[in-house]
């Protein structure tokens, strides 16, 4: 399990459940490394503001993380973390490597809207 304050997804079943039960989901699949930690930090900071989005992490090295590691949208990804955005269970965006708050915000706004109006 990753040492973050986010919701932890550790199995493929939990992954399926979270993307099916929530309309908007952002999952960051990584390690406790220099490129991943800032993304978890951004997610923790934005969680309060984007109440209509479910934020979660998943350990990259778990065999169960194949659902993200081997997803077609991750083809060509060569930098941790792999960050996936789901709407109604479908991938709407995926990024590779570190992203700053502005980049994450812009994806959240484009894909899920600014807030829950």
């Amino acid at each position, binding site marked *: 399990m990753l040492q973050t304050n986010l919701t932890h997804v550790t199995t493929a079943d939990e992954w399926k459940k979270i993307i099916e039960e929530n309309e908007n989901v952002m999952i960051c699949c990584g*390690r406790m490394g*220099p490129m991943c930690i800032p993304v978890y*930090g951004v997610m923790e900071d934005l969680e309060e503001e984007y109440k209509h989005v479910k934020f979660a992490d998943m350990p990259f090295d778990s065999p169960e993380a194949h659902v993200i590691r081997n997803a077609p949208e991750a083809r*060509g990804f060569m930098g941790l973390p792999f960050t996936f955005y789901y709407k109604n269970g479908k991938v709407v965006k995926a990024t*590779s490597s570190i992203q700053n*708050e502005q980049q994450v915000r812009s994806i959240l706004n484009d894909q899920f809207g600014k807030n829950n109006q």
Partner: protein
Amino acid sequence: MLVIRALWLGNQPARILYFITMENNRFDVIVLGGGPAGLTAAIYLSRARLRTLVLNIGTAGGQMVLTHEVANYPGVESVSGYTLSNTMKKQAKSFGSVIKNIASIQQLTLNGDVKQVVTGDGTVYESDAVILATGGRSRELGVEGERQFKGKGISYCATCDGEFFTDKEIIVIGGGNSALEEAVSLTKYASHITIVHQFDYFQAFEYAIEEAKQNTKISFKLNSVISKFQGGESFDGAYIKDVNTGEESFIKSSGAFIFIGYQPNTEVLKGIVELNKWGEIVVDSEMKTSLDGVFAAGDAIAKRYRQITTSVGEATVAALATAGWLHEQRRKKVSLAH
């Protein structure tokens, strides 16, 4: 105070709202940056009962959160940078500091008696003194294709992304300790590494140079700079230019790791406080900058060694000097009034 101001203004809602907002956004000290330096300054200032605001771009903890294991912080055997950051943040908050994450700074006015910071969303904060603790970051090359292939071939972290290049040929850019040490560590994965460096000598320690030279998986392209990264759906390689002849060639590779040093986060301070030719803030032994009431600490200042301990030490000096300076200013004001 608020009530008096409201009556004096004749109860005009907009102006009252402005004053209430400003009252909430008025601090004794604003600290720019929430890395180890900024958080340490906040701990000392708020313990001295000074109203302290930390404005931080990015994750509180700064570069410290990026450190997998901190093993050289005295009194703590070994701790992740993430945990140490959270503890420092909690400590600063427990003494009363306000810590806000911001996206950017729109305007800085630091030369008057009242210092003013306008953040990206237009919020105005004011204080009597400011501590600059904006730290630094890895330098980017700034060439075509760098942003496009970040995470899809271009990386700044060998331990994070090395395994994606197992049995592949890659490029490492740089000639300092990080570049050479990381190149050697990447030979665990890559089949071959070309180190591209702009000079005909390395700035690294002798042991790192020797280790890289003795590694049969590593070859060198010296006196060479990257002119462009190339690829379509995936990364194909880089165009390099010989700095002496101007001749261009293409190195086919699956990825490139960039380790070309450090740059201070002081762009926003240009023309405001004195910076040296590397963009570092010039301070005296009490961490005073060229402006009255403006102090600085940590990786953003002109200094040789950049560590958590050095940042924390400088921030302690900066905070105590700021508290002393504020006390003196207030004493002067009181004696003038009498």
